[in-house]
């Protein structure tokens, strides 16, 4: 059927298109509808929406065109322009077909406003026959298919589809039953032009569902249309970050000594794209449109209890590639996947394992440990077999695994006490704070991130603040005050996601198309606005970002008070190891000597020429540690805490949590410190 002539497309040149006498140059593949809209010429549509692929079903956009001297009728919404053509958006032939189509629709759905409006525009009257399926409801389903397309292309679920043919065609869930996979995300209801789909949210019972859906849809649309050109979270997941971090010298390598590695290509995203099942919806929860979780099918481990059997591995995501890969010197993707699999299987966090293992490996290479002490494990960087063996030992509570399993804070103590390690060296390279292992970013060149890590309430995890690009790359936080402001805003903002039980990734791993045009694009203001409306629509009221930050601040301060009551929450608890701040070893310094020498000259105002590496390291360390203390002071001040990190009674009062038993805790700490 139809003709099958092909026209070759030139991809570079533009093509002239004339719409009702006005000419415009368009890229090949632009649709007639898009070209007309560029010229502000209206072509009616019912089944078209910019968030989904053109469907060409309603036929309301029938338009006369002329190609190579031949006139024909096409649907404007999906006719791709591949050669020069003229469009007659309102010719007699165009109008006649639009009238014919609208008349058919009007016969069946006489009271749907979207149809009535177009019928009026084209002077279409009710036809003389009675449609046997006439439906007088103003919110009747007009079978445009937008909901079906949205569920498939935007939500990636295909919960709804067309069932039945011809006159029996209708939108339905499989077998006409409520599908368990439908989360009531409301995308279909939102995109529906007639209001035929109603979302009955009896579980959440939101105050203003329409308000929630409006902002929810915006995010869904961004995921569907922008992700491929932004973070590729749906197609690749977080593993796309590996090569980016390497490029910025931020990828933890050999226990955070370095930020990049020559073998990076072996663990970059093309490798993961080939190993990991892609392009399928795989969210942490059904209905997530970001769906960045990825899995490796039919993986066969080479060690451990599952050796030789086919298993499914959930991941790896970026942090696992860094922790179980570069940070322990492993650049073999299969070994990273195997470490990932056994960490998951044993219930061990991949970050804590990788960072603890990296610490043990550096101790091994520095001579603190030897084979006798590790029970025969040759814990050199890059020895994946030893790392796997260590992991199996940990799971069984055997040998050296018992020591590593207790974490870096205990290892530091034990290695000093039993193996005669230098406590200062162990403290400098042991990447933990508050007893938790560091997550996988090198923070040496970002003062704000050093504090973001070490000051985080639960320990050095970046979920309170990720400021490296703002601070180090884009230099947006030049002063202590600016850094302190960021360390107020972002921890409070990010804490709020925890309070709500929401994932943070949709906030800034996809951004509105116009994000850069807003003031402070780092905050993704368009999305902040969405969350304000989400909260307001859910529980009523009209919340703004200040209200949201206040909610978090109450919880955040209460957490600090709790830490104080437990004997923690002091200034010293907010300091990290020096490895997180600067070069601990001469090897580290030398690897970036140019950068550090420059900093000595410009920032410390000393001439590095003629000085030994040890002298230069000491000068740099003194400078960086002073800087860090400066940040601590500024942040405490901004948060309304004392110089030792204790929330003052005034701060508690301002937040409305000055309950006597709370105030009592801070007063006791202040008295103890003599700072009352």
């Amino acid at each position, binding site marked *: 059927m139809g003709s099958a002539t092909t026209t070759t497309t030139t991809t570079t040149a533009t093509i002239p298109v004339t719409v009702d006498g006005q000419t415009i140059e368009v890229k090949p593949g632009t649709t007639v509808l898009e070209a007309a809209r560029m010229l502000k010429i209206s072509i009616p549509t019912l089944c078209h929406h910019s968030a989904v692929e053109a469907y*060409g079903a309603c*036929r309301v956009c029938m338009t006369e065109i002329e190609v190579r001297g031949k006139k024909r009728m096409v649907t404007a919404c999906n006719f*791709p322009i591949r050669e020069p053509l003229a469009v007659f958006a309102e010719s007699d032939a165009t109008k*006649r077909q639009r009238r014919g*189509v609208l008349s058919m629709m009007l016969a069946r759905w006489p009271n749907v406003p979207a149809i009535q409006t177009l019928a009026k525009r084209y002077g279409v009257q009710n036809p*003389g026959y009675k449609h046997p399926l006439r439906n007088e409801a103003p919110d009747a389903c007009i079978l445009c298919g937008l909901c079906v397309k949205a569920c498939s292309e935007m939500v990636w679920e295909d919960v709804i589809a067309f069932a039945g043919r*011809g006159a029996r065609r209708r939108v339905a869930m499989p077998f006409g039953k409520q599908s368990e996979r439908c989360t009531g995300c409301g995308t279909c209801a939102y995109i529906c032009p007639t209001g035929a789909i109603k979302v009955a949210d009896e579980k959440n019972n939101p105050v203003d569902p329409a308000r929630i859906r409006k902002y929810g849809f915006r995010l869904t649309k961004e995921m569907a249309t922008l992700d491929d050109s932004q973070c590729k979270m749906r197609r690749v997941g977080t593993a796309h970050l590996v090569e980016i971090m390497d490029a910025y010298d931020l990828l933890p390598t050999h226990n955070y000594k370095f930020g990049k590695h020559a073998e990076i290509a072996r663990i970059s995203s093309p490798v993961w794209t080939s190993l990991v099942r892609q392009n399928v919806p795989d969210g942490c929860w059904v209905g997530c449109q970001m769906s960045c979780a990825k899995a490796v099918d039919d993986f066969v481990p080479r060690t451990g209890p599952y050796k030789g059997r086919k298993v499914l591995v959930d991941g790896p995501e970026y942090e696992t590639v860094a922790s179980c890969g570069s940070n322990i010197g492993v650049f073999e993707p299969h070994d990273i996947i195997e470490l990932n699999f056994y960490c998951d299987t044993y219930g061990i966090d991949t970050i804590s394992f990788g960072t603890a293992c990296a610490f043990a490996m550096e101790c091994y290479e520095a001579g603190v440990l030897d084979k006798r002490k590790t029970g025969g494990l040759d814990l050199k960087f890059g020895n994946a077999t030893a790392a796997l063996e260590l992991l199996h030992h940990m799971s069984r509570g055997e040998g050296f695994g018992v020591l590593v399993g207790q974490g870096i804070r205990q290892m530091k103590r034990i290695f000093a006490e039993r193996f005669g390690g230098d406590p200062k060296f162990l403290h400098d390279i042991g990447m933990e704070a508050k007893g938790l292992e560091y997550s996988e970013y090198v923070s040496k060149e970002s003062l704000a991130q050093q504090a973001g890590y070490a000051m985080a309430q639960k320990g050095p995890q970046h979920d309170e603040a990720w400021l490296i690009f703002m601070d180090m790359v884009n230099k947006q936080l030049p002063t202590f005050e600016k850094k302190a402001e960021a360390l107020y805003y972002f921890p409070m903002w990010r804490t709020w996601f925890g309070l709500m039980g929401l994932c943070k990734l949709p906030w800034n791993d996809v951004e509105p198309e116009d994000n850069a045009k807003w003031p402070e694009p780092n905050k993704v203001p368009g999305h902040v606005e969405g969350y304000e409306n989400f909260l307001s629509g859910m529980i009523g009221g009209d919340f703004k970002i200040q209200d949201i930050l206040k909610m978090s601040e109450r919880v955040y301060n209460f957490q600090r008070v709790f830490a104080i009551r437990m004997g923690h929450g002091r200034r010293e608890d907010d300091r990290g190891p020096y490895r997180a701040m600067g070069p601990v070893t001469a090897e580290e310094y030398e690897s970036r000597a140019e950068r550090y020498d420059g900093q000595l000259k410009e920032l410390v105002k000393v001439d590095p020429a003629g000085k030994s590496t040890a002298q230069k390291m000491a000068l740099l360390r003194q400078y960086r540690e002073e800087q860090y203390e400066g940040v601590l002071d500024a942040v405490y001040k901004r948060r309304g805490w004392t110089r030792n990190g204790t929330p003052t009674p005034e701060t508690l009062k301002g937040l409305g949590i000055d309950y006597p038993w709370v105030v009592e805790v801070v007063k006791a700490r202040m008295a103890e410190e003599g700072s009352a």
Partner: protein
Amino acid sequence: MSARAQRPPKERRATSARAARISARTLDAVGRKHQELLAGYKGLLLVCTGTGCVSAGGFVIRDSLKAMLKKRRLDKKWLVVQTGCNGFCAMGPILVVQPEGIFYEKLNEKSLEKVAEEHLVGGKPVKASMHKDLATGNPIAKMAEIPFFAKQQLIALRNKGIVDPENIESAIAMGGYAALKKALTTMKPADVLGEVMRSGIRGRGGAGFPTGAKWESCIKASATGATGESNAQAVRPSPTKPVLVCNADEGDPGAFMDRSIIETDPHAVLEGMCLGAYAIGASEGFIYIRKEYPLALERLEKAMAQARERGLLGKRILGSDFAFDIKIHRGAGAFVCGESTALMASMEGRVGEPRAKYVHNVESGYMGRPTVLNNVETWANVPVIVEKGGAWFGSIGTGDVAKSPWNGSSGTKVFSRVGNIANTGLVEVPMGIRLKEIIFDIGGGIPGGREFKAVQTGGPSGGCLPKSMLDLPVDFDTLAKAGSMMGSGGMIVMDDRTCMVDVAKYFIDFLKDESCGKCTPCREGLIAVSEILGAITRGQATEALLGELEGLCDTMAVSSLCQLGATAPNPVLSTLKYFRDEYLAHIRERKCPAGVCKSLIRYEITPNCNGCHVCARNCPTNCISGDKKKLHVIDANACIKCGICRDVCKFDAVRVG
């Protein structure tokens, strides 16, 4: 059979070479060996086992015949060969005795016994089971002399009734895969394309698009990389290896050309696809066949298995470097899945709905890959075109296709004819043959002494052509100009007891049910047109509604997404054009001239009645009363207008008014 084949066979068992792969060098020997095997028999007994004859008892005849031979110890003298559709379906079950070509029809166990005894043993053909000349009633002994066969010219059906579709050697013996051998040993892919281009062959599936041009576009798209939109959601892989599809989703009511070709000669289709794959550089092909064709599917699967075993499909075909294999996709029987884009959506595991074809399948078809889709009959023609040359094929049919395939309709076309026609069945005739030749000369005219009224060509969305059009030459362009179409070759003949409004409504209702419902004009247009036609047949319409009807048809024809909707108005528009008086009679006089539309007719008994009571005995509602030998009367209130009384009356005493 060749002179060579007449020599007594040295080797009786045809299976000596079984499972051995065939190379270009050994192909002829395999064929010769099979011919020698056949020559060792006194004759062949060709039993038709196409679906038509099978439903009339073809398999029973085949098995009984085998048993009879065995009983008489004749099974080493006569070989029973089950063949695909002979074509003369009206006369099944059919047996043809070779080498003389004696044609026996409408066989049953008793008449078969007689044939076995008198002909096979006694050597005297049985006149009683022969075909009778329609005019004289005289028996015609030889198949070739029966008018039904005489005017046919066989290309696609070249092996019908001769080869055993379940035996690849039988096909090879009749020249199967010789064209593939020729292509792989002496031709470049471009040469194969050249012959197809020269032949001017246009797609046999309906639209008549030139096959050569389609292949050429696909080759171009594969080379440059497809630039079109993706059908599938997944991102299309950038290397664009073309795919080849055989459309065996024949869905027109009353059409069985493709089914019969596969049941008769599946290797013709496979060989055609191999040649196509060689020409366009594909290594992967699909056959989309509907679930309702179990026998065709079974034979196709057997043929593919044998072809694979013998090295005619898969890797290193005929010992060359050429590799190509075919997968079968079974359709669930939706009419719309015969539309190429809907078919591919169905193959991709999605809802069988068409998409806009602004980007053609040759650029972006199955899984976004350049795809050539041709129908069964087209593929079956390809080996003959390659073997005998495009120029030879182009010399058959109408117009001069040497310069452009659009100048005419070359080759032959297979038609399945059903309805009020004496010789229902399958025929293959040269393009340009006149309608009346197909219907009267080959088809034997209208049975029961009734008048020809109209013929509907091209399936449900073809048009109905009246008596005045019987001289029309049958080719793609002439039929389209007359308001009908070639379609895939279905032909429904109607006599004077047919109401054309009712016929139009029948086809519209079929299409209404089969429309996928994706686009507004097809879905809503068919509902509305059906509603209006219903009102006309009930005598509830005004003339103004005819205007609405024509408006709806115009919107459907121009604005529908695919050809199902765009051609759906044909039955209405063609009947309005040629039988407008009949519409007006329904509207103005509230009468159905053909006596079909129940709301507008009543049955009466005329004085011709001699009171035999047959009608009263057969009436399902017992509404006919009257004493024996006296004029009977129909109670109009109880009559359900079923027409049985009229059919059973031997005295033409029941009148419809």
